[in-house]
């Protein structure tokens, strides 16, 4: 089976050590690129969660995407003239934040129920959401929203959400 034979002069052949070195460098190079990408991506794309109380205490960053969670305050939901500009208020019963959102709300969005919104905090203190999450079934509460409520009224046990879900 001479089709597999190495026809190049012996001097040009890679000896085993050098070849192994090339492979190891290549593998490490690949991992290095991956790590660089991951570090870069985590720096820009991690989304932190804050409760309305934390936002009121100015712990949340301005001009950066983060998530807030809590209950949709009863009676706070308003559709603007075009129907898809929406205002509501998220509360953890201690503090509340006005939220504006352009789009269609998810099925499970309901006043008095748990919600998580992702977006940025405007200078006027209004949270501009580009994503509103209220997943799963009726008695499920997003865990983030639940923990915000829990923190706000640690004494009342009825706010504790059921974990799990789908």
């Amino acid at each position, binding site marked *: *089976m001479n*089709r*597999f034979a*190495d026809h190049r002069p012996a001097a040009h052949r*890679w000896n*085993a050590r050098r*070849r192994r070195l*090339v*492979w190891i460098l*290549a*593998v490490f190079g*690949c*991992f290095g*690129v*991956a790590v660089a*990408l*991951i570090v*870069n*991506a*985590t720096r*820009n*794309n*991690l*989304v*932190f*969660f804050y409760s309305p109380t934390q936002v009121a205490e100015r712990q949340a960053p301005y001009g950066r995407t983060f*998530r807030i969670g809590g209950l949709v305050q009863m009676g706070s939901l308003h*559709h603007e003239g*075009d*129907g*898809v500009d929406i205002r509501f208020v998220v509360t953890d019963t201690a503090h509340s934040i006005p939220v504006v959102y*352009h*789009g*269609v*709300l*998810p*099925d*499970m969005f309901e006043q008095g129920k748990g919600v998580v919104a*992702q977006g940025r905090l405007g200078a006027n203190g209004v949270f501009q959401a580009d994503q509103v999450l209220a997943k*799963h*079934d*009726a008695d499920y509460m997003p*865990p*983030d929203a639940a*923990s915000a409520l829990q923190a706000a009224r640690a004494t009342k046990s009825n706010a504790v959400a059921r*974990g*799990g*879900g*789908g």
Partner: protein
Amino acid sequence: MIPELGHFCLIVALLVALVQAFYGLVGAQRGVAAWIGAVRAAARTQALFAILAFAALAFSFYRNDFSVLYVAQNSYSGMPWYYRIAAVWGDHEGSMLLWITTLGLWTLAVTFFSRRLPDEMVARVLGVLGLVSFGFLAFTLFTSDPFVRILPAPSEGNGLNSLLQDPGMASHPPMLYMGYVGFSVAYAFAMAALLAGRLDSAWARWTRPWTTAAWAFLTLGIVLGSWWAYTVLGWGGWWFWDPVENASFMPWLAGAALIHSLAVTEKRGAFRSWTALLAIITFSLSLIGTFLVRSGVLSSVHAFAVAPRRGIYILTFLVVVIGASLLLYAWRAPRVGMGGRFAVVSREAMLLVNNVVFITATGAVLLGTLYPLIMQALNLGKITVGAPYFNAVFAPVIAPVLFLIGVGPIARWKQETVLTLAQRLKWAALVAVIAGLLFPFAMGRWKPLVALGLIAAAWILASGWVNFRRRIALQGASGMGWRRFRVPRAYAGMLIAHAGVGIFVFGLTLVSAYSVEHDVKLAPGDTTMLAGYALRFEGTRPASGPDYTAQRGTIVVSRNGRAVTTLHPEKRVYIATGTPVTTAAISYGLRGDVYAALGDDVGNGAWTARLYHKPFVEWMWLGWVVMAIGGFIAISDKRYRIRVKAHVATALSPAPNPRPAPQPRAVGLHEGSAT
């Protein structure tokens, strides 16, 4: 009575699994022929009882036996029978039973399709599978028993989460589990080979069809899930990098790496230890995926606190399985040789890069999935790692593979020159670049990233065609007409699966770049323009289904004044659970989908709505289905059914191969390691 029988079947299966593991592993180790001979029977018995237990639970669902707690929690008599059956895997306990049953099916398959393997090997494989079955059966019986009764029995059940009442629920989880669990066979083969100290080409050859089958099932499972998300859950999205999705994607990536690594091990005898390690990694990721999704840890670490016994069992099980496998690997793997050498430019080298890339990508996904859990567990704040992270990391990492798909299969084993490759592929490259640069003009706007994506897609397809043509030419005109195009199925499957990647990249590029999404308010009579389509809303009417009531909208879609179709999006409320569900209406087409979903009733018959145009979105799923088809074609290749003795003969002397192939693919292991 039936649930008790089911419970009893589970206990029997648990005990028989122990027997199966003992006979298989100890029998093979000590060389006790009687024990080895009994393993097949034990495995079949175990599988049978597992399937019976599943049937008992399914029957309880079918009969609306709400005295079974799990049935009462997840079903409701008003649901159609097929969703009552699908509700079996609607929650944790039933999912575990589905896992066990699927493992039973795979075990049965191993007992039937292993006649050509040495008895000792089969005994070890079934022994390892017996241990895995035992672990899952014990977990189910002691922490997640689905047959627990509730007294007094409620007259009606809670109903299944209404989002789950969908054909997707009936097909997606079983298919996904076929994939997850199928990797346990690849794992069992690797463990058996490590135990026997024989990680060789024969082992790789036996493992290949099982691995490819599992991977193809997993591919279909992922497609079904993505499709389901698109039509029901996702408001037009098809992949969210949600932890639950990642849990299925990680074993898929590792499995893809394993398939390629197995090819090298079989053909060239190289990468043996690495292949065994990959089999362990793939199966471990399947286990982690199953448990992550079903234990509820993903939504919150504190879900463990809800059922601490379950959590501790899961962690222990994972540590034992992964730890023991790696220990065995560390103990045994170094004994086996490195296999044939290869140059920096060779098919092996490219497959190695493939593996590095796939494993790097898997690691990146794993990190993004677990990072929030780790942060939360360490009390470092609550964070979300969303799609932007995964897109930013995954796309550049995986990109080299898209290029190598074209080059690898056409490169020779062991030694290749860049010049030869360039000559063979120059036309494919030229066609790809021209097609990629020109096609975006047809879409209206030219974008550099779109051109890049399309060049990759066209490159994969064109180089596949070049490869095929070359193969035919090398085979010579051995027949007339269509017979000329007959190639081995494993080769055809490989080309088809790779073409599937090309089709997927094509769809992905176009739908990512040219989707149009409008969130609007629609009053009856309103017309909205969407990517050249005119959508006229005619209002909504009440409607009802077997277990829901709905508002049913009517949207007439036309293009250039001609009616195209009429869409009926619905807003349903399920009676049992009272939950609202948006059912989108989609007009499917190869050139793109028109998608409409109702939002909220904003008074005076007006609704908010999501109206999307998704160009070429169907091609993505088509690509994945083609990949799976390629996998299934590959496993039907004759050479996986060659008798062991015949295989040994071909390996020793290359001449009497039943299908003489001009390519160096028939090289046996001895030749490979003889350099």
